[in-house]
């Protein structure tokens, strides 16, 4: 039996060491990316690495303070913390300072604080508390509604600050809900929507409709025990197409063939739907619904893309998907970032020898694009190290979460892991060109006090909860 009362013995030091390692690696790269012959002292607080050193020192103090507070505190005060942060998020919209188009900052003296950074741990606490209450069941509509409200309220407020990246982070809670019993179907449809979104922008709607039709036919075939019954389905489609084709001929070829095929696939599906109801083929109906839903979604994507997304968001997505390339415009950052990372080779150019990241070729090189410096100066070896560390770190967090006795700690632990994962995934994905440019920091790596502290708080509350895993609460 481990020593129940010794806090320091129960702390998971592996996680703490991983945390410190990531933070120091981050600092080394910030130092390199803004390195300047004239300011060589690492304590030069006029330079960003000097400042980051202060942030790191403060982060360690914050970590210590969090650890010496009783773990019950975080449970009992979770709603109050959440409520306070929500209030701050509302307040910042009115009295906040606008920087780079985002009204996300409070000015306290010469100090800038970004409340949205602290929304993450507050939401995780509130979520953990609510989902741990007696009688909570995700399958109940009321529970689901309140859970959604807890997650989406801060997300919406952050969206109002014009900080899309930070708002998107809240989507990662879906994984927590999944772990706690949310139907896997939700994940399936989420993934389906993302795939359809990308495909509908890359290939023409007609091709996509035909691909979907093909998939639906294969699904019918796989699910159908009777071959004869299955054979009727293509016949339905052919018949509806022929019918439309003849009608079009009579009308004097008013419509394009591609349009007819699209309509025929929908009409055909409706017939199949009617047929499956008559024959009581439940799976057929489900496939039909998914197919119709996909078609409607596909066609609405164009509308959403062209009418709802802003021009720079369109440009970023176009760039990512290779639809329209503009290496000096929207694609500039990613292009430069890929050049920097790619030029690193296997072993990198060595510490302080990066050139791409030093000459301002890569913008935001010490915040959102910090991974460029890793890639350029430490090469593929460095990439493996950093990604490997994050993998170990994230898996360790899941392992820690799973060993909790209390639902509160487990849910909070999962929240920590998925939030950090989302940041990791989007940030590095962006620098290597497989995610659109969404400006969110790489945890513990990127320059900046607010983000470093918020990640520290997020993590150390969990480490504190984990240290008390033998206590009952």
């Amino acid at each position: 039996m481990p020593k129940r009362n010794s806090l320091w013995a129960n702390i998971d030091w592996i996680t703490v060491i991983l945390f410190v390692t990531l933070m120091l690696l981050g600092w080394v790269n910030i130092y390199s990316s803004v390195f300047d012959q004239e300011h060589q002292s690492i304590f030069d607080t006029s330079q960003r690495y000097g400042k980051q050193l202060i942030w790191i020192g403060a982060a360690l103090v914050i970590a210590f303070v969090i650890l010496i507070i009783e773990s019950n505190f975080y449970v009992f005060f979770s709603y109050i913390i959440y409520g306070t942060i929500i209030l701050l998020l509302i307040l910042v919209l009115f009295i906040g300072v606008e920087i780079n188009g985002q009204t996300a900052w409070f000015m306290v003296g010469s100090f800038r604080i970004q409340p949205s950074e602290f929304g993450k741990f507050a939401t995780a606490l509130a979520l953990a508390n609510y989902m741990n209450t007696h009688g909570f069941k995700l399958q109940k509509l009321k529970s689901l509604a309140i859970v959604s409200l807890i997650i989406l309220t801060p997300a919406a407020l952050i969206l109002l600050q014009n900080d899309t990246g930070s708002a998107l982070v809240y989507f990662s809670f879906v994984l927590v809900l999944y772990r706690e019993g949310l139907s896997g179907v939700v994940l399936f449809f989420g993934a389906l929507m993302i795939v359809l979104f990308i495909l509908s922008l890359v290939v023409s709607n007609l091709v996509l409709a035909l691909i979907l039709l093909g998939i639906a036919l294969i699904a019918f075939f796989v699910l159908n025990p009777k071959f004869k019954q299955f054979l009727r389905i293509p016949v339905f489609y052919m018949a509806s197409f022929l019918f439309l084709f003849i009608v079009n001929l009579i009308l004097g070829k008013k419509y394009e063939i591609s349009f007819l095929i699209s309509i025929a696939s929908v009409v055909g599906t409706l017939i199949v739907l009617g047929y499956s109801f008559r024959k009581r083929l439940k799976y057929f109906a489900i496939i039909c619904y998914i197919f119709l839903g996909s078609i409607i979604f596909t066609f609405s994507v164009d509308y959403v893309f062209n009418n709802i997304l802003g021009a720079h968001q369109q440009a970023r997505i176009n760039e990512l998907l290779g639809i329209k390339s503009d290496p000096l415009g929207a694609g500039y950052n990613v292009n430069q970032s890929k050049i920097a990372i790619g030029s690193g080779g296997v072993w990198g150019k060595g510490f302080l020898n990066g050139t791409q990241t030093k000459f301002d070729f890569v913008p935001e090189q010490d915040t959102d694009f910090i991974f460029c410096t890793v890639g350029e100066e430490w090469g593929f070896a460095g990439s493996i190290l950093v990604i490997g560390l994050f993998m170990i770190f994230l898996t360790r967090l899941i392992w820690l979460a799973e060993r909790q006795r209390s639902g509160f700690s487990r849910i909070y632990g999962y929240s920590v892991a998925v939030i950090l994962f989302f940041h990791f995934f989007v940030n590095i994905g962006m620098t290597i060109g497989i995610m659109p440019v969404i400006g969110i920091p790489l945890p513990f790596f990127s320059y900046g006090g607010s983000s470093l502290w918020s990640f520290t708080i997020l993590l150390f509350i969990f480490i504190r909860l984990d240290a008390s895993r033998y206590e009952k609460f």
Partner: protein
Amino acid sequence: MDIFSKRKYLVIAIFLAAGTVFLIKLFGLQVMDSKYKVSATNNVLREIVQYPARGLVYDRNGTLMVFNKPAYDLLITPREVEAFDTTAFCKLLEISKEELNAGIQKAREYSTYKPSILIKQIPPESFAYLQEQLYKFKGFHTQSRTLREYAHSSAAHVLGYVSEVNDNDINRDEYYKPGDYIGASGIEKTYENQLRGVKGIKKQLVDVHNRIQGSYLNGAEDIPAQIGKDIISTLDADLQIYAEQLFRNKRGGVVAIEPSTGEVLALVSAPTYDPGLLVGRVRGTNYNILLRDTLKPLFNRATQAKYPPGSTFKLINTLVGLETGAITTNSRFSCYGKSTTPIRCTHNHVSPADVVDAIRESCNPFLWNTFRATIRKYNSTAEGFNVWREYVASFGIGQILSSDFPNALSGNLPKESLYNGIYGSGRWSPLTIRSLAIGQGELGATPLQMANVAAAIANRGYYYPPHLIKEIENDTIPGSFKKRRNTKISPVNFEPIIEGMEQVVNGNLNATIGVPGLQMCGKTGTVENNQGSDHSVFTAFAPKENPKIAIFVYVENGVWGSRYAAPMASLMVEQYLNDTIAAKRKWVEKRMLDANLLNPNQPK
């Protein structure tokens, strides 16, 4: 253990899948793909802007007027600067140590590792030597630009000048970046888009120490700069230079137009300045000197001065009288010389006078009677005035004539409301506004507008918008320049006026303004001036049939129209049409060249 415990595997699987995808992608980027390994020597790509040379400007006969000369900027990259001999460096660049230190400080504030311009526009003479010595000074390099050079130091107001872009220019058009040049006045401004060309980009490999290692992909991705389009101006360089010589030590303006096209042959605002003064490093200093000059050389009198046209305006008033039927060629009015009321005549001549006599003698009483008759022809003074005003406006008076003069003013052509405001509606009569009859009072017209009137008279009733551009290389000139505009006067009514104008030249002024073998038609004017000597005005065209040149000359404090403006106009017409001044007229030329009228109180 809860029933969903197994779901941790999917979550971990997602994490590991993401990590794996990243590593595969990074393996591709960093190990497989050599595209991003620009070279093994840690090279970086730098985009160097290629500045195009501006288009050249020629005169109508193909004489080069504006061209480019190379100049060089010296750039500094502060972090690469090593200790150097500042004394030698300052001597090399002919700057003081303070200037050098201030420049380095400014560059440092901008960026320590990005180059910024330390010294602009070093002339090629100094550059050659500088380039030889530059290797001693680490962290400095040069870039080449081009500056304007003028073949004749003339036509400053027409050609305009080029200056560095300001914040407004940068905000208005994203083509411009700080440090770029832009046409700031004249043709340089109006045709900036054609003249400037298109900047190019050259990609070069630069090592960590900013040393250029060669071109990237052998220049495959370079975008070459496109040089600006050349412009053929309508000016006649010889005439322009001659006009400027005649206007030395005088104030005023002259505009000469080819009536059949509206092409401006010469445009002078005196005193003028050498356009070369506003080029290169001395631009700022010289600009301030010119700005403070009490003779206002930067002010374009030819397009911005609202001069009362004086007697030259009588041509229009007579034409309006004939066109409205207020008078006919048979109408005669008595003139009692100095005792005539309400406007006295300044000449002694036959009386009663007809139209031709009146133009020849510039008879004020005749013009007064004509003006009154014109307005009285209508039901009310106001109606008559408005009809008169429309006729005058059809000559382009009171309007901006063309897009080629960006800062031109429209002058003053009074409106009914002005007099209603002064005297009250219905409480003014032709007598009240009689000054208009003789081209004074509230009237104000620029020399450009009056030269255009001369062109319209030469054409017997129409004009083309005056313009400065004949051709643009691989481009078209604005269509409006080719659009004929008709005055509201019938061609037939011009004949007696032109007859009168011919008699002006052939009369007792013939000794000073008559050019042998040239049928010139003209009209003098003298504008009263309370602040000093009167102003001398002359408008003319020649030859009488198929006119080739219409001209308007305004000489401030020139006393009489016949004393300076008329001889100067005749010399310009002679120079333009005959390419030389006849020997027997050399004394007139000398007198004009020698005259100094800068003292506003010339002896009468």
